[in-house]
């Protein structure tokens, strides 16, 4: 979104500002990318290490998975930027409906 107008030819666009923004954006992306690889490694280690029981490992990797989804959505798919309110609303509504459905299935069908 921020990058779109770099070559617009519009004199009002402050190229310096855009460039700074892009660099900042790139830094966030690299940091979150490194974090994601690190978290994936942690997940593998948690599963591979015999000292942890399933009662620790399963919730732990689920939390890591949640963090990964947030990274993916907010840093790689730019949901942190402006103009994504409607997609965010519908995304969370969908998550909510799916969650209610799963919760009901887990508790009253397959209990």
């Amino acid at each position, binding site marked *: 979104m921020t990058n779109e107008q770099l070559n617009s030819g519009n004199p009002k666009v402050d190229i310096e500002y855009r460039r700074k923004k892009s660099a900042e954006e790139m830094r966030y992306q690299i940091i979150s990318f490194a974090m994601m690889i690190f978290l994936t490694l942690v997940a593998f280690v948690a599963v591979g290490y015999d000292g942890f029981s399933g009662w620790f490992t399963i919730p732990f990797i689920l939390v890591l998975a949640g963090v990964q989804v947030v990274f993916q959505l907010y840093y790689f798919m730019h949901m942190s930027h402006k103009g994504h309110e409607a997609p965010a609303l519908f995304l969370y*509504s969908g998550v909510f409906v799916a969650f209610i459905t799963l919760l*009901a*299935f887990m508790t009253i*069908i397959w209990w």
Partner: protein
Amino acid sequence: MSTYAQKKGFGATIWDYLTTVDHKKIAILYLIAGGFFFIVGGLEAMFIRIQLAIPANDFLSAGLYNEILTMHGTTMIFLAAMPLIFAFMNAVMPLQIGARDVAFPFLNSLGFWLFFFGGVFLNLSWFLGGAPDAGWTSYASLSLASEGHGIDFYVLGLQISGAGTLIGGINFLVTIINMRAPGMTYMRMPLFTWSTFVTSALILFAFPPLTVALFMMLFDRLFGGNFFDPLMGGNTIIWEHLFWIFGHPEVYILVLPAFGIFSEIFAIFSRKRLFGYSSMVFATVLIGFLGFMVWAHHMFTTGLGPIANAIFSVATMAIAVPTGIKIFNWLFTMWGGSITFTTPMLYAIAFIPTFTMGGVTGIMLASAAQDYQYHDSYFVVAHFHYVIVGGVVFALLAGLHLYWPKMFGTMLSEKLGKITFWLFVIGFHLTFFIQHFLGLMGMPRRIFTFNKGQGFDAANMVSTVGAFFMAVATVVLLINVIVTIVKNERIGNDPWGDGRTLEWAIPSPPPFYNFKQLPLVRGLDAYWIEKMDGKTEMTPAEPIGDIHMPNNSFIPFVISLGLFIAAFGAMYHGNHAWGIPVLIIGMLITFGSMFVRSVKDDHGYHIHKEELMDDDKGGKA
């Protein structure tokens, strides 16, 4: 003179409608197809009532009765109520937000043709060995045991038409989010547009569970799956849950647009701003939200256990709060208004007590302990007919009278309209009010006959007489439509005289590009604001310029036709050797036409400024 307005021959008109991507023409297609299925479902209802008029009747056999009952419910919900609502959404919503079309005109057409072919497929079951006979809910334990191909018609037909509905819903969502005219903020949108928005969101979230359930049923019945077969490790309750996770929001998908239509009517014919606009919006959203957390109230007696029953019971009762907010807002809108009793307004006024009664029996049914008494009795039948006929069908009839001038440029006769209204309302209460008591006396629903001396004779006769009143009302309505079309007396922009929203600021029917210049919206009830400032038309928000329009396309028809053919292949592949080849051919047609659509660039065309300037009928914004 614009070249687009030439007089066309009959064949050219048919071709125009087969290929159209114009939301107003698609609305007319939805209206015709939905109206046709409404008549079909109505005839089925008449057969049901004739069969039940006297005890031990043999007008229908038990098996045929089951088929007619199933098809009545399925047709009325999926093929009549939904498309008729889509007709009004298509016709009015883009005009209300000041848009030139929906966001994806091609998908709009695809949605219609998918619905149409799904509906035709479902109804062909009558001629091809028997219709579905497991009720519109088609519970797996019953439907898996159903012989013949009836249930397969149900599954495949609804799968195809459901895809069309989902496409339509997404299209409306994108349209409302992205295509509002300058100044049209969310909190300035007319209430019908708001209800279209919430309804479309419900469609988006409610139809996928149905799709999943139908696919599971499809595999269980035709391809050796065992999702719902307990003997093979499946679970038959999963169908019930998935069906009602879809089915309960479906009720709100139907009734929220009805609320929207009535909100417009109350404001127009009371000559007042809608009372409590923001609380109306809030209530609409809240009903949509709560609608996803109550589905198990359809399943209290399946043995969910007391905790689950209690949770769903309380959640269900909570919906009465936003609905109550709406009822009082409508009453306060009329309070002190200068009311004119036109046909739409009569329906709106009749709707309030009728719907409230349906709501009250809803609360009674929501109480899990009481539900064990009412379950599967005529009390339930009375309840949901009070909600769906008293809410949705009243709104559709009211909307037909209200928006007919905008869609066709002529006025339906008020005199015949009022005759229809009185016959229908009297017939409706005669038919269904007494069914509450039939249920309380112990008459179970979905039975094909009853015996003398059970005490059901008189009440059932009354109910059947009422049904004939509604049938006569529908005939009068059809006469009204034909007379109006033949007379063809053209009317102006604002035939009701008190239009408040943008659609009344442009000609009836609107030019195919809707707005020559996009209007500037200065508040809620945009056109009314301009009128109060002594103006006769909207202030334009842009200079006259070229308008970009989409080209017509025959591809949506072909995509849907391919699925229609493939469905026959899927259904008969167990009986005939040609099944699999036909399935493949159908899929090839569908995917082939999608491929053509993808690779062939279609940039549409422009209406040029010069043409627009000459075209004086293309009402200024």
